[in-house]
């Protein structure tokens, strides 16, 4: 981005505050007036999505939207800036929030969950934090919203309030807060003092590549601190919070652990690689090799683990870890097409994976089944759900005409740009592994005969559960056909 | 840095006062830290503060100088103040600035003033500390630190409902007179039971350490018989022998 037009606009802030307003409404409505409460959630989600989408044309016209909230330090403002990747991420998150809300209504009511007010309000909070991350313009701002997300999702993860919830919550917070407070904070204050010595704006646009002034080791150390500091990216070995956090209700797993939280992590990593280090510094510092290696290792290992998981949600979780590996890999490739592919993959994978999670949840609501081995023949009872599952898994595997194909394609191209053949090989192998651990689910569901016919009462989940997953499955196709717009956003097409 | 000969020479010959104050200070400090009886700690505190006062006062000492009060020849209202009879105080301001030659005749008043403050603070602290001691004694029937700590620990463990990590739950019933820990609690329980006799003895003894005069005076007078007993006042033979000891 060489000095684009900057537009002062309050819309980013509105997108940020809409969930807060929604939360106030939600709490005011309370458990007594459930419908009113969920209506507030819908309103907040739609307002947010509308505002975010209304920003698209501005960005496509090559401008950048900024909003200055307040001055954190004498040099570092709390600055919101909307650029292509950020907006893409924001669009995905806010649009999928609507779907998730609809789904959550079905799910929570279907299971008669408790404390739904708390659930919806913290859900809104975490979405606000996600918007903040997507729109932040410097390291400190992004850090603020990153921490806000960690804390505001804790009540969602520990929603069940029992022993498992405690274990899951502990792993979750333990990993996230430890990394962010002990690895990220030093890196940040290092940048604060020494990045661009003196004028301490840790700005993404102004300070790209200023890290280049540091010594070799310093750069490596900073890269390390940032990469693992944003542990939400789920790079191995800092990944185990993600399966742990699967104790949460499925809507939470779906949105937060397929879309918001993990994608925030990889988005932060992308920001660091693309806008703090910058492709050329990254390319010449030689530190990105091992970043790529770690990412590839994460991809392969997590796929292998996923093969061995029988619990459907855990399998999906490990598949998520692998897919995040793609994005980090793309960001680390440090070529335009590679990093563009990474951002694209945020969207594509989000759409595919949320479909899968929705399906898992729908199956659980309808039949109470959690394990892949229990799903024999369930496809005949719930054809819509399992059909959507099929589509989702194909998209994640990356077959045309589904969204997943595009991003993987650009990742491969990016890898070829810097003729790193082995990366392409890794991509191929992992796609193969995806096939192995995702397709069997659908296959079992459709073609294996159930061992007993006793659960003949089994039928589709209630419609609020089914509609969203059909929508998102359909979205996978749309993303493939509308990919030009996305490519424009990430600057891969004029 | 310093070898013994020189330092002792300097200390004992020309800086004896500093040496003395250091010794006093150490005595006080030692008493405050290491003594077991709270009252003895307070005595140490007084010694400690006195040592500091001695130090300050010895700062003010000046060779060949008198106390900081103007001699008649320098007194603003003294001989040299030309204050003739019909002049009222309204106009009279006869004082002159002391000529530099006269200044060495007077010691520096500042340390004395400072120490007046320090003394008052010391008195206040002592009074406060004594009242706290009385309060402790009222609550726990002892002014010995180790016994006090023992009782405090027990009280804390009882209060925190036993589920305190540092103290297993079992001990709470034991404190209520179970077989366990009986040996340790032997004398303390009987002390808390027979709270009446002990406080009086300690009370008297403490008050003696506190204000020596009154205790003695009263000791003398409390020995004499009085033959018309008042309704309110009641003789306490238990008191006599102990007072005789004093």
């Amino acid at each position, binding site marked *: 981005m060489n000095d684009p037009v900057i537009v002062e606009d309050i819309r980013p802030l509105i997108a940020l505050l809409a969930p807060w307003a929604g939360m106030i409404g939600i709490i005011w409505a309370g458990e007594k007036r459930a419908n009113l409460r969920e209506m507030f959630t819908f309103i907040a989600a739609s307002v947010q999505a509308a505002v975010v989408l209304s920003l698209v044309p501005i960005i496509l016209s090559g401008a950048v939207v900024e909003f200055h909230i307040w001055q954190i330090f004498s040099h570092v403002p709390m600055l919101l800036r909307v650029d292509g990747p950020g907006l893409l991420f924001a669009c995905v998150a806010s649009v999928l929030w609507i779907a998730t809300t609809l789904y959550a209504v079905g799910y929570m009511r279907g299971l008669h969950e408790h404390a739904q007010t708390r659930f919806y309000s913290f859900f809104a909070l975490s979405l606000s934090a996600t918007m903040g991350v997507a729109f932040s313009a410097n390291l400190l701002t992004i850090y603020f919203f990153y921490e806000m997300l960690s804390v505001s999702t804790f009540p969602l993860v520990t929603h069940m309030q029992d022993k498992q919830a405690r274990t899951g919550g502990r792993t979750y917070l333990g990993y996230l807060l430890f990394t962010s407070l002990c690895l990220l904070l030093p890196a940040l204050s290092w940048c604060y003092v020494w990045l661009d010595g003196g004028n301490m704006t840790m700005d993404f646009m102004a300070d790209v590549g200023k890290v280049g002034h540091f010594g070799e080791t310093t750069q490596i150390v900073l890269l390390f601190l940032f990469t693992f500091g944003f542990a939400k990216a789920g790079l191995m070995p800092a990944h185990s919070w993600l399966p742990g956090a699967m104790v949460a209700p499925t809507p939470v797993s779906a949105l937060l652990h397929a879309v918001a939280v993990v994608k925030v992590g990889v988005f932060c990593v992308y920001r660091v690689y693309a806008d703090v280090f910058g492709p050329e510094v990254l390319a010449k510092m030689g530190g990105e090799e091992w970043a790529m290696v770690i990412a590839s290792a994460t991809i392969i290992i997590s796929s292998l683990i996923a093969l061995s998981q029988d619990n459907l949600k855990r399998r999906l979780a490990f598949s998520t870890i692998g897919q995040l590996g793609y994005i980090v890999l793309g960001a680390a490739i440090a070529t335009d097409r590679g990093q563009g592919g990474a951002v694209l993959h945020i969207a594509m994978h989000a759409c595919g994976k949320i479909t899968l999670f929705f399906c898992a949840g729908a199956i659980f609501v309808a039949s109470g089944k959690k394990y892949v081995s229990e799903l024999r023949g369930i496809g005949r009872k719930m054809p819509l759900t399992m059909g959507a599952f099929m589509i989702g898994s194909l998209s994640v595997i990356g077959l045309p005409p589904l969204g997943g194909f595009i991003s993987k394609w650009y990742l491969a191209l990016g890898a070829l740009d810097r003729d790193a053949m082995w990366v392409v090989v890794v991509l191929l192998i992992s796609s193969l592994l995806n096939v192995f651990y995702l397709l069997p689910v659908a296959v079992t569901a459709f073609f294996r005969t159930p061992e007993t016919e006793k659960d003949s009462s089994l039928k589709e989940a209630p419609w609020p559960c089914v509609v969203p997953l059909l929508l998102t499955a359909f979205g996978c196709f749309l993303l493939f056909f509308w990919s030009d717009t996305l490519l424009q956003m990430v600057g891969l097409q004029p | 840095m*310093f070898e013994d000969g*020189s*330092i002792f020479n300097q200390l004992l010959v020309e*800086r004896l006062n*500093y*040496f003395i104050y250091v010794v006093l*200070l*150490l005595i006080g400090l*030692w008493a405050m*830290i*290491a003594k077991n009886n709270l009252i003895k700690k307070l005595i140490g505190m007084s010694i400690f503060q006195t040592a500091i006062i001695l130090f300050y006062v010895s700062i*003010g000492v*000046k060779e060949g100088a008198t106390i*900081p*009060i*103007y001699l008649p020849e*320098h*007194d*603003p*209202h003294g001989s040299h103040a030309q204050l003739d009879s019909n002049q009222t*105080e*309204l*106009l009279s*301001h006869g*004082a002159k*600035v*002391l000529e*530099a030659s*006269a*200044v060495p005749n*007077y010691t*520096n*008043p*500042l*340390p*004395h*003033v400072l120490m*007046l*403050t320090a003394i*008052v*603070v010391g*008195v206040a*602290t002592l*009074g*406060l500390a*004594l*009242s706290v001691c*009385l309060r402790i004694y*009222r609550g726990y029937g002892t002014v010995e630190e180790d016994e006090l700590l023992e009782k405090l620990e027990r009280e804390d463990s009882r209060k925190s409902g036993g589920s305190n990590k540092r103290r297993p739950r079992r001990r709470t019933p034991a404190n209520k007179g179970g077989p366990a820990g009986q040996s340790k609690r032997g004398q303390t329980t009987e002390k808390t039971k027979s709270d*009446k006799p002990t406080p009086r003895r300690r*009370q008297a003894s403490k008050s003696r350490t506190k204000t020596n005069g*009154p*205790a003695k*005076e*009263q000791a003398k*007078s409390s020995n*004499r018989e009085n033959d018309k007993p008042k309704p309110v*006042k*009641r003789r*306490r033979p238990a008191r006599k022998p102990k007072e005789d000891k004093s």
Partner: protein
Amino acid sequence: MKKAAFILVLCIGLLLAWAAKDFPSWGDPQSPASSSPVASHFIANTGVDTEVPNMVTAVLADYRGFDTMFETVVVFIAGLAVFSILRGGPKNRTRDREFVVDFEPDLIVTNTVRLIVPVIQIFALYVLAHGHVSPGGGFQGGVAMGASFILIALSWDLKTALARFPIERCFTVAALGIVIYAGIGLLSLFLGGEFLDYAHLAKIFPVSPEMARYHAMLGVEIGVGFTVTAIMFALYASLSTDGRMRDGL
């Protein structure tokens, strides 16, 4: 524990001894403390500034009057704290009886005291009022005055003393003393000077600024005397009766 304490104390002692070799020798007129401009200003100009022959009093009540005000406040605090810490103990008669004194006031003692108490009090007033020209001042006078009441309590019993100086009145008087002190300072503040700048009192009293300081110091000392007297007696009364205010010791 004791060993550690001993070593600690020893280390501190060595430290202080080591420092002592750097001190000016005893009574050296050239020592910084004695030859500093502040000290020589006190000695040379006290008369001119305040007309007070006794430099200690001048420094105490005027130059460093703020210190002294808080000194008085410290005494007041001690009284308040002791009284409120000790009062309101467990109310059982047996405990109370332990503090009952079971003897008649002795004839000789009481009569002697009857004779000397007035003398003590007169002397206390003298010490207080004469603090400007001779050793003395508010604290000394106040302590002597308080001692006279304590003597009454010792020779008769506390009830007799409290009948002459009730404990509530003690605190009223003590607070009054502080009001007098701070009030004089405040008056000079309102008259356009700084706080405790007595010289400005000359605007309302027919004296020269220096004599204003002179007399204001007397007033201040009186305030101090009030507080110290009251609190000394209150301390004795509270401590000797474990806060019960029955006849004590």
